[in-house]
Each structure stands twice: as structure tokens, then as C-alpha cells.
């Protein structure tokens, strides 16, 4: 079954196409990477799919259902590219995760054991148990990304959208992050849509790749779709593909 089907999606702002007739589908339980140069419309594509920006034409189906915006029927997880928040926000990691735990209403002073246990479990899954009482402003880039993954998992989504999730994170942090994503896919059967600039990440972690520059340029398995010509047409003449000999697909 397809987790995500996008048909002829286009987004227009001031009569200018940001993305044009993008069509692709993602199989349930797979990791798909979206690549393209800066300004190619990758973030716009994800935001349009998630209903954060309106699209001019086309359709989005999640698990066989039309999807216009998030609702209680289809839970989706999202980790944005640059999380815009006030770093002086006096907020602990537990509190941040607690906001997301349903139900939407809460009664103060009541013991919420279930909520506490869920937060504990989620922090354990992302390997951040020790961060529970830390202030979010004091987290490193890698720590924050793991917390954002935990936040994205609160509603038990079947699909995760990650927009350049490891940008600004050191190499070790990136490794841990992508290993976590891979483990989540395996353990929870999650479908992962991932934007990345790093071709190494694409080859190592993605089952399929979509390359775009406002329009769809290629799609398929990374080894097949990312030919030298495709990479040059996406990133320019100076780029080429180097495929690692140690391949890590499951």
C-alpha cells in the first residue's frame, strides 16, 4: 500500500510556480529522500503536503485518504528544517513533549501518570532520557533534533516528514540521528520522507530518492536514479556521484 501519493502538485505564489506538477508515491514502511539544489522547492513540497501552505492544483493522499491538513484520523510527524522558537523560552523537555500528548484539554493538579510514562518511553526510544528536565534552550543541535523526533512520535504517527533534520549537527550527531531514523522505521514500521543535501545520507539510508528542481527530475532507487547526468543537472557540472562500497540498506 502507498503511504503517500502526490499527483500533479503545484504551488504558485504571485503567479510564479514554486513547484510544478510533482507526482510521486511512497510505499509504506520505506525511507524516501528528496534532494535538489537550494530554492528547488523541497521544503515547499513538504509544507504543501502537510497543508501548511495551500497548493494551486493536484492532490495528496495519505494511506489512501485525501489529506488537506493534519487531523485526528491521520497522525503525521514533522521535524522542520530550522525550528523557529525563542531560545529563552522557559520550557523543559518534558513540558514540551507533554503539550503534544492528547487529549487537547488538561486539568491542572491532577496526576497524569499515563502522560509521564509516555514521555519517559519516548525519551528512551530517542536515547535522550537524561534530557527530561533540561531547558530546551540549553540543548545542542543534535540533542534538540532527537527531542523533536520524540515530539513527532507522540501521536504515534505512521509517517514522518524530516526537513534537513541534521543540518547544523556535527558528524557524530548526524550518524546517531540517522541510525535512530533507521531503527524507528524497522521497529515501528514508519514511513519516512526525508529532505537532505547530503548524497552520502541518501545512498546509506534511503530506499528511494526523488530529485527535483521545481519539477520532478528523477525518482527511483538511489543507485539507479542518481546517474552522473542527473546529479549534474540538479547540482551543476562540478558535482558527481561517488558510491560507497559498504552499503547499509536493510
Amino acid at each position, binding site marked *: 500500500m502507498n503511504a503517500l501519493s502526490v499527483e500533479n502538485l503545484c504551488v504558485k505564489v504571485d503567479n510564479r510556480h514554486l513547484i510544478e506538477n510533482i507526482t510521486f508515491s511512497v510505499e509504506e514502511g520505506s525511507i524516501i529522500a528528496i534532494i535538489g539544489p537550494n530554492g528547488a522547492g523541497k521544503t515547499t513540497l513538504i*509544507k504543501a503536503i*502537510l*497543508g*501548511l501552505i495551500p497548493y494551486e492544483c493536484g492532490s495528496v493522499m495519505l494511506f489512501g485518504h485525501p489529506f488537506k*491538513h*493534519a*487531523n*485526528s484520523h491521520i*497522525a*503525521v*510527524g*514533522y521535524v*522542520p528544517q530550522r*525550528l*523557529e*522558537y*525563542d531560545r*529563552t*523560552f*522557559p*520550557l*523543559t523537555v518534558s*513540558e*514540551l513533549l*507533554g*503539550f*503534544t*500528548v492528547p487529549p*487537547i*484539554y*488538561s*486539568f*491542572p493538579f491532577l496526576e497524569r501518570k499515563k502522560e509521564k510514562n509516555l514521555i519517559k518511553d519516548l525519551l528512551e526510544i530517542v536515547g535522550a532520557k537524561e534530557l527530561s528536565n533540561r*531547558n530546551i534552550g540549553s540543548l545542542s543541535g543534535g540533542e534538540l533534533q532527537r527531542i523533536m523526533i520524540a*515530539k513527532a512520535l*507522540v*501521536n504515534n504517527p505512521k509517517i514522518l516528514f524530516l526537513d534537513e533534520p541534521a543540518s547544523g549537527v556535527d558528524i557524530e550527531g548526524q550518524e546517531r540521528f540517522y541510525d535512530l531514523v533507521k531503527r524507528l522505521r524497522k521497529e515501528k514500521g514508519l514511513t519516512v520522507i526525508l529532505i537532505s543535501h547530503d548524497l552520502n545520507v541518501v545512498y546509506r539510508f534511503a530506499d528511494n530518492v526523488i530529485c527535483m528542481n521545481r519539477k520532478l527530475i528523477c525518482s527511483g532507487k538511489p543507485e539507479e536514479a542518481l546517474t552522473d547526468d542527473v546529479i549534474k543537472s540538479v547540482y551543476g557540472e562540478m558535482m558527481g556521484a561517488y558510491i560507497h562500497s559498504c552499503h547499509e540498506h536493510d
Partner: protein
Amino acid sequence: MNTISEFLSYPFIQRALLASLMVGILCPFVGNFAVLRRMSFFSDAISHSAFAGIAVGALLGLDLSLSSIAVSIIIALLIAFLSEKTSLSNDTVIGIAFSGTIAAGMLIIGMLKGYKPDIFTFLFGDILAISHIDLLLLFAITILSIATLLIFSKPFLQITFNRELAKVEGVNVRLFEYLLFLIIAIVVTVSLKIIGMILVTSLLIVPAAAAKNLASSMKQLFGLSCAFGLISGLIGLMASVYLNTSSGPTIVLVSIGIFFLTLFKRRA
């Protein structure tokens, strides 16, 4: 000099004390959202639109409290609507509402004949002139606003943290944003008689900003801001009675004193 017990025996002092307690908790509680969402200018615009509401009420012979609340709510929803539907930035929309309402208020007051002492109560505030009805209205607004913000604290704080994430997580962002704007508008307007139009924003913003200097969690932020608001209200009121100064400015100056103390503590 009178003793505290003597002061407390006067009914108008008792009412003033109760009003300062309620405003001391209510304004900072709501103000936390204004501070975290960087909406200080919005509460200023609302207090100025209340001025226009007071002017309209005086012109048409309506109850000034109700007319100010009505106009403030209309302006708050208009700001929310224009910010959402146009490409104008939030502060531009607020700036237009701010100047438009004050201009309308001044124009209407200029058309009124005779001296209107009630209008000056709203401009500068007079906690000692609080009536039983004012107190009841303030009590109802305090309970309703704090209960709404507490029960729906999750979506309100999700939106405050990051609007886009909240939307993806299934929060009806538009509904809760309009509700927050509405609550801020009502709280600002009912506090006008106590603190005055010119200073009401201070009681929303200053205790919340002082608490933000010290707090490392949401629980601490809300607890400390209400404590600071309460202390400012009580000390400010008592000091104004003893020193024979205006209560609104005295309360605000006490809260600013607390803010500077927390600033030093933060730097330490």
C-alpha cells in the same frame, strides 16, 4: 499614620485590595502568553481601542465598561483577521489599529460637551473607585480566563512554541489564536479601571518578563509571574494609600522594581 487594620476596615479599601489581588494574578497569567508570543504591542493597541470604546459609550450614553469591552473585542478580532488574511506584518496591522482607535477616541471625546470624569478614570485608573459590580465582573473574567487558559494550556502553548508544528500536530491554530486574542482583549479592558489605559500593558508584561528572567520551566514562569503580580498589587496599593499617590502608577513602579531585581539575579 493609620494602622493597616484601620485601613482594611474601609469598604473601598477592601474592594481595592480584592481588585488588586485579582488583577495581580490575572494580568501576569495572561501576560505570559503575550510575552512569549511577543505580543506586547498588541495589548497596547487593545488598551487604546478600549479608549475608543469608552468614547463611543460616552457619546451614545452607554455603559462605559461594556462599550469598551465590545470595541476592544472587535478590534482584537479585526487585528487577528487582517494579520491572517493579508500579507501585512503583525506589527503593521497592530500599528494601524493602535493609531486608528486612539484617533477615533480623541475625535469623539472632542465632540462631547462638558467634563466627563468617568473617562479619566479609564485613562489613568482609580482602584479606590472600584464598585461592587466592577469587582464581580473582574472576578468572573478572572475565573473564566484563567480556567480557559489552564484547561487548554496544551494547544495554547503548542502554538506559542511553534505555529507550524502545532498545525501539523492537529491543533486548530486559528480557533485558539482567536480565543487568545479575545482573552487578552477582555483582560486588558476589565483592568483599565484599576491600572488605567496608559499603564495597563505594564501589568501584563512586566511581571511576566520578570518571571521569565528567573524561570527555567513553564510551571515556574506561571507561578513566579502571578506571585510578582500579586506582590506588586498589594505593595503598590498599600504604598499608594500611605503615600497618597495614584495607585496604578505605584503598582506598576513596584512591578518594575521587581523586574530590575530579577534582572540582577539573572545576570549574577
